């Protein structure tokens, strides 16, 4: 059994981080350059961590599978980033942001981590503005804010509908500065395919060059994974096509625990699926819910009528009806399930019946088209490109889609996994969002982890490692890991079956969406746990990966990633089955209140489930870390 010590510092909640920073070990400036730190991934968390660590004097190597760090999928975040600045004078505070995030996560995250996140949120905004991030401003020149789901204050900072892009370009600029200064070595087109663990400590990685196929070993004093989430296990999602779980999955298979894998976020406002050929789903930012009103017809028979022909009296603005105090801005899990319910009732719009309206008619009437265009113009443009419909004239059709994974590798308060020396940041870890993430919090967490947490906590670990004690990349453990990567790569090429990788990915996605999506139940999850291993066996017998391993081979890249998803999907179902309660994005049909809301079980499930790999073909071990709340009382979430 793995040891899960959360290392939450003692004392008053609001003083924990300050005292912890003052208490943890330091590395002397002259020694910092003797330590090498590997950072895998260069999204918000990876870029900000690499840049900040290099500024401190550590030698940093950064690995990305893209051709440039600026391609990481943080770039696609639209709506904004939360921070407890209280610039709007509307009563916001660190405590409120902490409380909203904890409650939004349905009381399945750690108090201490979430409080720290809220504390450093204000520093993030300062940092980004100083980097030249062109946030939206008011005429007086000060920063503007808007509202996001699950909050009753306006604390979201934004740069049009491209906030993630601008924040990432800020972090990427910092990374570029570090590269130019020589503190960071950048490896592009480099995919991490294994973690090297020596004497229980993470000491390096094995990497495949996606252009040349060369497999190389890289030793370090500490390894940081900032490789994002695993939502592409569903095949169709708002993730980039390249987003994958391989780095964290292979770390899991080397002993890092995987926490709460079943906690996935289904975002309520995405463009609905149109056909089987589809490769991705596109998000329509949550910020649209500031002004858009969500509705379906009251009567089933109206669902295919032109929306304009349905009179007000025959429309059901169901979020405003069920959740009057939060209305259209209720949290994502709540809004998604409500959409599913009305579609299940046969009132969904569009040919497939899997859609609801997001209507700007009122907003255009109240504010004029020009104002709506200035707030959301780029989103309306994206909608037009994809659907060929004009959302200024008719409501958008939207439907929930997989968007984020709250689960991830288990980390302690220092963001270090149960494998010493392995740190996990951003979406790749599990730490801050519990069972549901609030909008505009992913950017906050990625940058908090990278700029303001890990630069301190890595030092605390490195101080225990003698300078120069880093193992050589010629160590036997490195050679063995390299051989294992080379073997599994060539194995994919030698199956020479009939079906392309994409077919397996689609079939896995169908299983996951049907049984481990917005609603789950025992029978379905058990079914999925039969179907997934069967599909996995078929994959290894019948996958067709053309080409060779020594050039750019996109089929081979995807095959490796899908092979990992075929294992991870099963773990997600196993976790969902074991968690006999509903909380946040994890909705077990057996556990609900009569009105269809989540019924948590705080007596038996107020814990983190951290799965430990037990060997191929063996049932993994379910470790638990109790969630001890010292300040907040766990209560039933109420957005009504």
């Amino acid at each position, binding site marked *: 059994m793995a040891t899960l010590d959360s290392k939450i510092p003692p004392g008053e909640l609001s003083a924990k981080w300050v005292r912890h920073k003052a208490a943890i070990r330091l590395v002397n400036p002259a020694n910092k350059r003797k330590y090498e730190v590997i950072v895998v991934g260069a999204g918000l968390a990876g870029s900000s961590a690499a840049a900040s660590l290099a*500024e401190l004097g550590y030698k940093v190597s950064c690995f990305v599978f893209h051709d*440039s760090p*600026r*391609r990481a*999928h943080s*770039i*696609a975040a639209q709506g904004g980033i939360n921070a407890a*600045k209280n610039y709007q004078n509307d009563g916001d505070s660190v405590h409120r942001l902490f409380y909203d995030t904890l409650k939004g996560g349905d009381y399945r995250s750690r108090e201490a981590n979430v409080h720290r996140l809220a504390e450093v949120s204000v*520093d993030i905004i*300062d*940092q*980004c*503005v*100083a*980097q*030249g991030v*062109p946030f*939206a*401003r008011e*005429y007086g*020149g*000060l*920063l503007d804010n808007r509202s996001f789901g699950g909050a009753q204050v306006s604390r979201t900072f934004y*740069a*049009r509908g491209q906030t993630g892009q*601008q924040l990432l*370009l800020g972090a*990427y*600029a*910092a990374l*570029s*500065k570090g590269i130019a200064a020589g503190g960071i070595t950048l490896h*592009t087109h480099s995919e991490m395919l294994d973690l090297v663990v020596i004497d229980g400590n993470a000491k390096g990685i094995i990497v495949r060059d996606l*252009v040349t196929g060369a497999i190389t070993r890289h030793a370090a004093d500490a390894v940081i994974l900032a490789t994002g989430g695993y939502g592409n296990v569903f095949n169709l999602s708002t993730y*980039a*096509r*390249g987003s994958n779980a391989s780095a964290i999955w292979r770390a899991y298979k080397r002993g890092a625990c995987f926490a709460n894998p079943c906690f996935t976020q289904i975002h309520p406002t995405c463009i609905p699926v*149109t*056909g089987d*050929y*589809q*490769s*991705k789903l*596109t998000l329509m930012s949550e910020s649209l819910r500031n002004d858009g009103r969500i509705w379906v017809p009251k009567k089933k028979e109206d669902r295919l009528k032109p929306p304009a022909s349905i009179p007000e009296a025959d429309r059901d603005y169901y979020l405003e009806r069920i959740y009057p105090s939060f209305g259209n801005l209720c949290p994502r899990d709540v809004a998604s399930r409500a959409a599913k319910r009305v579609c299940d009732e046969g009132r969904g719009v569009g*040919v*497939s019946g899997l859609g609801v309206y997001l209507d700007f008619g009122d907003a255009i009437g109240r504010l004029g088209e020009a104002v709506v265009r200035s707030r959301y113009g780029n989103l309306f443009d*994206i909608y037009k*490109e*994809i*659907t*060929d419909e004009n959302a200024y004239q008719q409501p958008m059709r939207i439907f929930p889609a997989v968007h984020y994974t709250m689960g991830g590798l288990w980390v302690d308060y220092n963001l270090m996994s149960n494998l010493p020396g392995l740190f996990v940041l951003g979406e790749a870890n599990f730490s801050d969002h519990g069972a549901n993430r609030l909008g505009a919090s992913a950017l906050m967490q990625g940058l908090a982890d990278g*700029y*303001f947490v890990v*630069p301190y906590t890595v030092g605390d670990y490195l101080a225990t490692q003698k300078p120069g004690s880093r193992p050589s990349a010629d160590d036997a453990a490195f050679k063995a890991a390299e051989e294992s990567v080379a073997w599994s790569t060539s194995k994919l090429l030698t199956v020479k079956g009939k079906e*392309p990788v994409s077919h397996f990915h689609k079939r896995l996605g169908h299983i996951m969406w049907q049984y481990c999506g917005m609603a789950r139940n025992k029978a379905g999850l058990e079914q999925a746990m039969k179907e997934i291993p069967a599909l996995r066996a078929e994959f290894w017998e019948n996958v067709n990966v*053309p*080409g060779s391993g020594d*050039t*750019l081979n*996109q089929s081979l890249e995807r095959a490796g990633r899908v092979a990992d998803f075929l294992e991870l999907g099963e773990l997600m179902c196993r976790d969902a089955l074991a968690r006999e309660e509903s909380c946040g994005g994890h909705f077990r049909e057996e556990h609900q209140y009569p009105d269809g809301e989540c019924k948590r079980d705080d007596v038996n499930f107020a814990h983190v489930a951290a799965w430990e790999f037990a060997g191929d073909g063996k049932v993994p071990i379910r470790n638990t870390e109790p969630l001890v709340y010292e300040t907040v009382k766990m209560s039933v979430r109420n957005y009504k």
Partner: protein
Amino acid sequence: MSTTTFSVTVRVWRQEGPGKPGAFADYTVGGVNPDMSFLEMLDVLNDDLTAKGIEPVAFAHDCREGICGTCSLVIDGKPHGPHHGVASCQTYMRSYREGDVIVVEPFRARPFPVIKDLVTDRTAFEKIQQAGGFISIRTGSAPEANSVPVPKEVADLAMDAAQCIGCGACVAACKNASAMLFVAAKVSHLGLLPQGQPERDRRVLAMVSTMDGLGFGSCTNQYECSAACPKLISHDFIARMNRDYAKAIFRSSFKPVAAGADE
């Protein structure tokens, strides 16, 4: 939602590797749905080719929502295809009809060598960025965000420039393979903001000289770059950069020299 499907012929550039000879190959893609994206049509083609034992066409793509800047196709001679203000991934098959022959090539420019088929190496942009495309602020040393007001018009104009997705269509569209629009967008974004002033001269000089050194051509003011830009970044930023550059050159020639310094 459309249900009638059709077939097209794609004439694709196939090239095994860097420096290897390349050639066009024709493939028929059936079952094309008008709501399919152009890249989804290529996915269908690639699954077909895989089934037939032909190596699939390599093409760069990732986010498929027009923001990551990875996709980089020249479709019928136009970088990112027939429509203004969108990336290749946002081109939809409803723009095509039964029987169309669609020519698909990689971005062609000497500083962007072909890696394979439709994938090019755009590392040159990284080098330009690293030469000075940043504000040197150390983590933790930033002043309070609202301590420096930025007029809304200035922030908006900076944002217009900052939207660049770094795809390189501007280079591919230019007969001289000039990177002026890319560089001008970064120089203007940072140079417009008060936070970018301390390094304004150094930045423009370093980025322009790196750009020149990497083999990008000169600008002859025909603005093909702006027309091809998926974010419609204005060529006015090129003029702004030229002014910045001239001022920086002028100022740098009057740089005070410390007493006793060896020249």
